[in-house]
């Protein structure tokens, strides 16, 4: 069986494949690949930082120095200032607690007002000394954190917390005293 067919009438129904499409595909491909490589590069830069945040074993490397390797033998010129500030703080704190106890031990309104005023003054004195401790610490923080009982910054923060708490107590006591004193004819100037 031999059959002949015309094929020409079926032509031009389809579009021939073009080189332009290929060039566009390649361009798109290189854009995609470039985008992926750029993303990976950015990711690579962040990976180290992400890893350190997550891995506590390597936590110390967040800082630019190493605690273990700090040389304490050189000493620090700020040590005497720190010692002086701490001893002043201890003395002032004894005075402060003494005044505070006197305030709580009396029921007389006039006396209580007088002691509250002294309590406030004693608090301000402690704040003044506390600032001396901060100044001394800031002169050489590495030395104080590594060589000066290994917890200078923690000590400072605990004193700060204590003073913040005391300030609230002083203020609360004043709010209790104020209406009683005003009833007795005292006038307070803001």
């Amino acid at each position, binding site marked *: *069986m*031999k*059959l*002949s*067919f*015309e*094929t*020409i009438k*079926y*032509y*031009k*129904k*389809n579009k*021939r*494949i073009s*080189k332009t*499409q*290929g060039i566009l*595909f*390649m361009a*798109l*491909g*290189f854009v*995609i*690949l470039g985008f*992926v*490589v750029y993303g*990976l590069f950015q*990711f*690579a830069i962040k*990976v180290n930082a*992400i*890893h350190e945040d*997550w891995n506590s074993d390597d936590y110390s490397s967040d800082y630019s120095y190493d605690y273990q390797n700090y040389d304490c033998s050189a000493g620090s010129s700020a040590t005497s200032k720190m010692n002086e500030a701490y001893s002043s703080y201890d003395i002032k704190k004894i005075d402060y607690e003494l005044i505070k106890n006197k305030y709580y031990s009396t029921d007389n309104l006039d006396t209580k007002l007088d002691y509250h005023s002294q309590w406030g003054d004693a608090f301000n004195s402690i704040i003044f000394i506390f600032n001396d401790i901060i100044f001394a610490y800031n002169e050489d923080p590495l030395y104080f954190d590594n060589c000066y009982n290994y917890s200078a910054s923690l000590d400072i923060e605990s004193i700060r917390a204590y003073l913040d708490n005391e300030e609230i107590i002083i203020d609360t006591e004043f709010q209790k005293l104020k209406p009683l004193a005003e009833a007795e004819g005292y006038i307070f100037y803001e």
Partner: protein
Amino acid sequence: MEVNNETDKFELMYSVFMLIFGFGIILCFLIAIGFMIYIYNILFLFYCWPILVGIWLGIFRKSDKGYEMELKSEDAKKLNRIIEKITKKTGQKKPYKIILSEGSGIAVSGLFRKKLIIGLATLQLLDEKDLLSIIAHEYGHFAKKDTVLGYFTYRIQNFIELQEEINRQNLTFSFTIVIYLPTWIFFFLLSKYYTLISLWYSRRVEYRADRFAADLVGEKEFANALVKYCVISEIFENIIPQYILHFLQQNKQLVNIYDYMNPIYTEENIKNSFKDVLSDKSNWWSTHPSISERLEALNIKSVDINMDTNLKDFFDNQKKYEEEASEVMTQKMEYWAHLIAASQTPEG
């Protein structure tokens, strides 16, 4: 034989681009996974192990070749003579092995060792001249190393699709969605893009292989063979599976499905099939250009189909191979019928 060097340069550039793009993306993905493991340590391995399994399978899993019926060299004397005519003209090597498939397709594959796959159905009706033309087209793929590039693009495509599937299957409403959802979206889009660019290239090299064959055997001869091959294939694939299913429904099996071929190649069927084949259109997802596009590229205005139904002599022990292929095709049809029946059965 004339070779268009300009086209070759462009196609070489495009194939290099496909490899750089494919392997570049895979390399970036592997580096990114390495970073994730570095950050999350055991957590990543615990929750995202399917991704790692996908990487392993994508790179190292061997492709599933399915059932292969190798034609023994002592049985393939005439077929080998035809192949030899082409190898002498082109300077190419003989195929490492010839595989007979149960269907109608003719194809080539192989990275280093060339493999020629010939559908038994087409061997029933193609004459020597036709077969020479079709194999010449396949040798066009060998000559231009299309099978080598095809191997690598297949591996890349396989890797991408495996990752897409694994990430899709692991999408659940848990915290792991932050890994799986973006990865799935990335590989889904990448799969579409890579399929698009590799199929564009696949269609383009078909024109080149057509030109290769036309230069060897003549444009008219190749066009006649190409259309005849497509008509044989179209009729076979449309009718023979229906026969097999018909007999399966009666719990019967055809011993040799190829014995039922000759009666279906009537003049009417051939004319109808010719119209279907020539009217078929290609699109961006087609592996091959349409037949009309290919004939137009060869500047063919008409074709002659000489259908001789008394052939079947390309190799010895044909009955034995045909019966084995019939068994394979029947099993495949049985499996498909089972799947279709299962999908139509209401649940519960």
